């Protein structure tokens, strides 16, 4: 079972986000970049499958700030090979990124012919499309998203995947392989890897680099961003100021007034 995991870096929304001077994009000069949360789950799901059924896991990511740390951490967690796609279009949208990644998957030895292609079900900046269905279309593979459980059977070849529906209902699907899955949550929380182990991996293993194919194609996105702003709230909470004890006491009073105590 060969598993390919597509990872993406996104701005850390715990930090303050800044709009670029053009007013139409984010200023990514500052602030931390982190692995997209559902991609982290996709990586964990790939490792769980490998531990259960054997096979190999290859992680693939577009070049971005702090991506090397993420790829070395992936190696430390048990990924067999990591590949960084260098020279992608600056500010590539999700559909453009999917196109670049699919081109590399189709042409790079060792990446073609994976049984499973996993990525996060949705990223916080998937404005012009989602990665998993975009990849599926580029690679002419079936797609299932919002997956929270995945058990492949290489002899079939097929997989049983659980898709999450509203109100806690799961849908069990049979999917012919190879296929692309958008992972919402792995069967277990993403594993922690000690910094020391990542540092050791940095000395003993390497990141393979592959150049993104040069393209003269027009933008695949077809979107025109007119403006990017921070939301102007129509309402804002009344903030209770003071120490934890003072704010707790004030809140207690509010709850009592409303008959909630």
């Amino acid at each position, binding site marked *: 079972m060969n598993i390919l995991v597509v990872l993406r870096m996104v701005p850390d929304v715990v930090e303050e986000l800044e709009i670029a001077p053009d007013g139409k994009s984010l200023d990514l000069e500052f602030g931390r970049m982190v692995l997209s949360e559902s991609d982290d789950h996709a990586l964990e799901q790939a490792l769980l499958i490998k531990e259960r059924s054997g096979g190999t896991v290859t992680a693939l990511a577009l070049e971005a700030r702090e991506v090397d740390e993420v790829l070395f951490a992936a190696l430390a967690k048990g990924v067999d090979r990591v590949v960084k796609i260098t020279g992608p279009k600056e500010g590539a949208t999700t559909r453009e990124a999917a196109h670049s990644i699919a081109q590399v998957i189709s042409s790079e030895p060792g990446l073609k012919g994976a049984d499973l292609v996993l990525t996060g079900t949705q990223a916080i900046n998937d404005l012009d499309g989602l990665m998993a269905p975009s990849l599926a279309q580029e690679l002419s593979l079936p797609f299932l998203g919002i997956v929270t459980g995945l058990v492949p059977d290489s002899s079939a070849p097929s997989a049983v995947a659980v898709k999450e529906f509203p109100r806690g209902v799961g849908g069990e699907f049979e999917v012919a392989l190879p296929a692309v899955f958008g992972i919402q949550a792995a069967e277990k929380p993403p594993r922690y890897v000690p910094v020391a182990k990542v540092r050791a991996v940095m000395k003993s293993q390497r990141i393979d680099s592959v150049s993104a194919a040069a393209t003269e194609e027009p933008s695949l996105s077809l979107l025109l961003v007119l403006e990017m702003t921070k939301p102007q709230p129509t309402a804002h909470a009344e903030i209770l100021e003071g120490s934890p004890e003072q704010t707790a006491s004030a*809140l207690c009073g509010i709850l009592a007034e409303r008959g909630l105590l």
Partner: protein
Amino acid sequence: MSAEYWVVVEHWRGSVSQITYEALALGREVADQLGASLHAVLLGHNARELAATLGKADSVIYADDPQLSEVVAETYAEALVQLLKSRKPKGIIIPLTNVSLGAGTLLGARLGLPVVNFCTDVKVAEGAVQARCTLYGGKIESRVTTEREPTILGLCPGARPSEKGLSDQRPPIEDFAVSLPEPAIHLKKYIEPEAGDVDITQQEVLVAVGRGIQGQENLNLAETLAKQLRGAVCASRPVIDQGWLPISRQVGKSGATVKPKLYLALGISGAPEHAEGMKNSALIVAVNTDRSAPIFNIAHYGIVADVLEVLPALSEAIESRKGVGSHA
């Protein structure tokens, strides 16, 4: 031929989803401003009767096929591709929910059409459709238009009140025949959530915990507070994904929609996926270290502080007040 605008009807397990009516309300506004007719696209099997509630549209385009009996993004996209070969709408609104997610992207990718995700509002300006989209966990808004039509708009819940999309009129139905290939994806069965846990939709008080609770060992603080307030503990997605609470306690897109008298959001940022499940609570109180967290835009009261400091202080304050009350 007059211009058309479409809304793809989301229905699941025999019922039309609320977001369909929200989309119809929005679609009606957009179609009227464009001078276009509005059509609800109903894909299903033996689902004709669902069209009766879709009278906000000028007509329902109905495709019936056994392969459309369940919502599978691939099959839905293929049916829409076939429909788009015979009719050319100016735009298509598709719900961006756990049921329909992926269908819009696949459709756009197959036909080379623009897709705009995370839409929370759509307006017409100078004859062109402009979408407002909420990105980066609710911290950024983007105003977007497209270079060509039709535009596929992935709509988030809450764009319009669902009541505005209802109508007493029965719309005319236009049948459309599809020919779908054998699918690579089959639904085998539904897995119901385990029974026996607290029904959070029935609680008057909910103490909701998010990433700010930091660890499972701190959940007892929330449990204590919930007990004091005669309520229950629920959570946002990250807490459920960590396995700290069962999925039956999840509020938001994949979980429950709740409307308690009091919703205490502790260490929850207020991403749109969570907000859609709790924003109609009667009283919302948020505690978060990030003053710019979107949760403060929907909360009535807020405390900018560490949840782990506020929780014990609040429990103690409630205990003191009860003590005073009992001696009075």
